[in-house]
């Protein structure tokens, strides 16, 4: 490594360090979705933030290097073309680079896998595996509120097996509750995306796709379809969903049960076709 190498490297390193710190400080201020309405959403928000923070120095470094090279290592204008120093590589630098990228990758993977397994541990669903629609009330401790989500061209229907299969076209959830979604479809592949809750699960015909959410804050949320499902895919969105207090939820679900009383709904059925959307909408 010559003196000239060191001068260039030092300049780049200092500029990179300064700009990275500035960049990271900015990245920490960026407000990212999906928010904090559920523990899953909080996890996703902090993971997105973490990735933004990790990518910032990488981004800054690459852009800085390109800009620095094209200004500092430029061919002399107007003169005959000149060759650069014939350097064919530097084994130690290559090993170091691979090692550093490998460490970053391992770090990301550990964080990601840790997040996955901890949420899997949290969602130890032994109780609900027994049978759908046989559990107690949603307020019983340790029990998960089961919600069956049925995708259809082009709306979602929500059914509450714990409440005699009461069904609604809008999703109401009690706050501070562990919820277990059973997502399925009657026709094509849809994807149930409760944006602010940080939930996304494909709705496949004939498949019971299970996913979990733990609500922590009341408020409205949007549900969209996130998988192309035909011509009205873009219209398959509903903003009239909310996480509400336990008391409000009890009142609401009682009303839904009353409204549904003449429909003779099954508590739970994996091959159930919801009625056309006439109720409550």
């Amino acid at each position, binding site marked *: 490594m010559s003196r000239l190498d060191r001068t260039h490297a030092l300049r780049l390193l200092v500029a990179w360090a300064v700009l990275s710190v500035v960049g990271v400080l900015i990245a920490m201020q960026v407000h990212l979705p999906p928010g904090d309405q559920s523990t899953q959403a909080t996890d996703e928000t902090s*993971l997105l933030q973490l990735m933004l923070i990790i*990518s910032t120095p990488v981004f800054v470094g690459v852009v800085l290097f390109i800009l620095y090279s094209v200004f500092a290592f430029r061919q002399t204008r107007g003169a005959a073309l000149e060759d650069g120093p014939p350097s064919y590589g530097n084994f130690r630098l290559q090993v170091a680079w691979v090692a550093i990228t490998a460490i970053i990758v391992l770090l990301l993977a550990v964080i990601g896998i840790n*997040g996955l397994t901890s949420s899997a541990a949290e969602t130890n669903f032994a109780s609900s595996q027994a049978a759908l629609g046989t559990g107690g009330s949603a307020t019983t401790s340790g029990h998960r509120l089961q919600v069956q989500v049925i995708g259809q061209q082009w709306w979602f229907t929500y059914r509450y097996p714990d409440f005699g299969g009461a069904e609604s076209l809008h999703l109401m959830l009690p706050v501070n509750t562990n919820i277990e979604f059973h997502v399925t479809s009657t026709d094509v592949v849809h994807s149930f995306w409760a944006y602010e809750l940080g939930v996304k699960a494909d709705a496949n015909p004939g498949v019971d796709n299970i996913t979990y959410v733990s609500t922590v804050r009341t408020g409205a949320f949007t549900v969209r379809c996130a998988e192309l499902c035909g011509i009205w*895919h873009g219209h398959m969105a509903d903003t009239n969903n909310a996480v509400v207090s336990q008391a409000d939820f009890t009142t609401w679900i009682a009303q839904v049960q009353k409204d549904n009383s003449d429909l003779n709904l099954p508590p739970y059925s994996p091959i159930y076709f919801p009625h056309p959307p006439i109720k409550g909408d």
Partner: protein
Amino acid sequence: MAVAPAVDDGPPIIQSSERRIVIPTNILTGIALAAVGYWAGAQLGISFALNDAGNTEVLLGYTFASIMFLVGIGFANYPLARLFGWRVTPQPAGDDHDGPWRYLNLSLDHKVIGVQYLVAMLMAMLFGGIGAMLIRTSLLVPDPPIVAPDKYLTLVSMHSVMMIFVASAAIVGPFGNFFVPYMIGTNRMAFPRLEALSFWLVPPAIVILLAAPIFGGFQTGWTGYTPLSEQADQGFDSYIVGFTLIGLALVVSGVNMLTTIIQLRAPGMTWTRLPIFVWGVFSASILGTFAAPILAAALVMQGLDRTVNTTFFISSAGGSPYLWENLFWFFGHPEVYIFILPAFGIVLELIVHFSRKPLWGYRTAVVGLLGVTLLSWFVWQHHLFMSGIAPALRPFFMFSTEMISIPTGIVFLVAFGTMWRARISMTVPMLFSLGFLFNFLIGGLSGVFLSDVPSDTTLHGSYFSMAHFHFTIVGGEIFAIVAAIYYWFPKMTGRMLNQTWGKIHFWWMFIAFNLAFMPLFAAGLLDMPRRVSTYAVSLQTLNDWVSVWAFILFASMVLFAINIIWSWFFTFKVAPANPWQARSIEWMLPTPLGRRNFEKIPVFTGGPYDYGNPSAKPAADLGGPPDRGMGSLGAEPAPS
């Protein structure tokens, strides 16, 4: 040690038949026979009287039309001659037609095929680009859409499939076919007929795809998920046949490239002297050879589902939509590296020549390319994190996906090592190569966001992922293609592209691209799903901004097209033989290039990248050893 086998010891002579199938074979015959073939296939399909919503008719029509087109253009001549014992005589490749007419007809000359591919790909890019403009026009208002939802989704699907055609073949097709034989020092490809076939499968695929709206279009996107595809009209049959033809072209081209690069390297062209662009083509060809058959097979299964009710993917009859998703992405993920590996090759090649330094860490770069090739087989389920398939496998696919950043990081390291203390010329190809590094960096970093399951839960299926792959494919691959066109155009056509307009084109395209696509990350984070004809009213300003910059981006490509047409046909000055003063062998040859690549098979005496090394020999000795006939070189060990 490189080996030059006997087939390579002369001009590109190919066994040809003296007799033709009754009528002269050329493109007009091809088109006429294609029409007859469509009619015959459709009649046959109707005669089966299946309860299939008319799909057999269209599928057989397209299939027969494609086969008859190839027969009409001349692909059956040689096999028929061998079959019936007609006389076959050696004949120089591609001499069936002369003058510009050669370019419209079957030619076995790799230079002609390269130019044919280039023009066809630019045309396809134009069709796909017009589709993109119509999409962005429709998205100017959130609701009601300017284009009706079914037409809108047909546009989205046709734009995506057309651009996938372009992305799959627009580097290996034009530049691989044209320059790999030069770079490895041979007069021909290993299988010239397969090379021609890999091109002539493309025009029918494009025409068949463009025919989709006649039969109601298809609203499935490029993924063609079942059961949605079962609901599609006969327009979806265009997807099946068109995509299958492209899949076959990838296999045929891949086998040919691998064989050529392994077998036909001239003496002295050792594996460690192989230009990095050839390595990029080589690794993409491995993927094309082994991944595209899966696509073709899966598409045939969809075709059978639609015609004779085989129910591979029909869940109501015991099939599984998951099967399609797995097969499609098992092809689909290697596919995206078919796009980007040759682009890596181009960018590293160009950065070397315009930095005027040797490729820094050559072996590491090769390991990087081959590492991506290997890893790309183990990541396909990251497209299916939300699907509900095997949740227990998610950590594995998350890890394997993130692993790909290691070999990709190597490509950046090699580029940087080469630029370190270099003498950089900011030519148009170099500008586009550096633009590639910037855009692909954003594409790659956003890919990391998508690789982790919890963050993917929010981003999957949103405009974030759409912005991600547009940064890798448009900002990455298309920038590399444009760089390659500016770089190699003088050698391919004998004309320089206008460099001043090239610089204007670069800044125009680079700025418009980033301003158009960067906000789409925000659209995705603000819960705008992909492939929607309508969106939240609050996102209108953002979408209008994107549309306007997309139009400006399109205008930059119009400028590029004008530059190509003007420079090619309306400037009459022959380009200098080596306008970039590059060391590699294609620039040692005269412009315009001769009909035969090399009068004598060259002997490679040095690496292509030995800039600044006073003891380095020229890349190749074009005269060959004076005391030997060309045929005996194969037995000689390679000079080191």
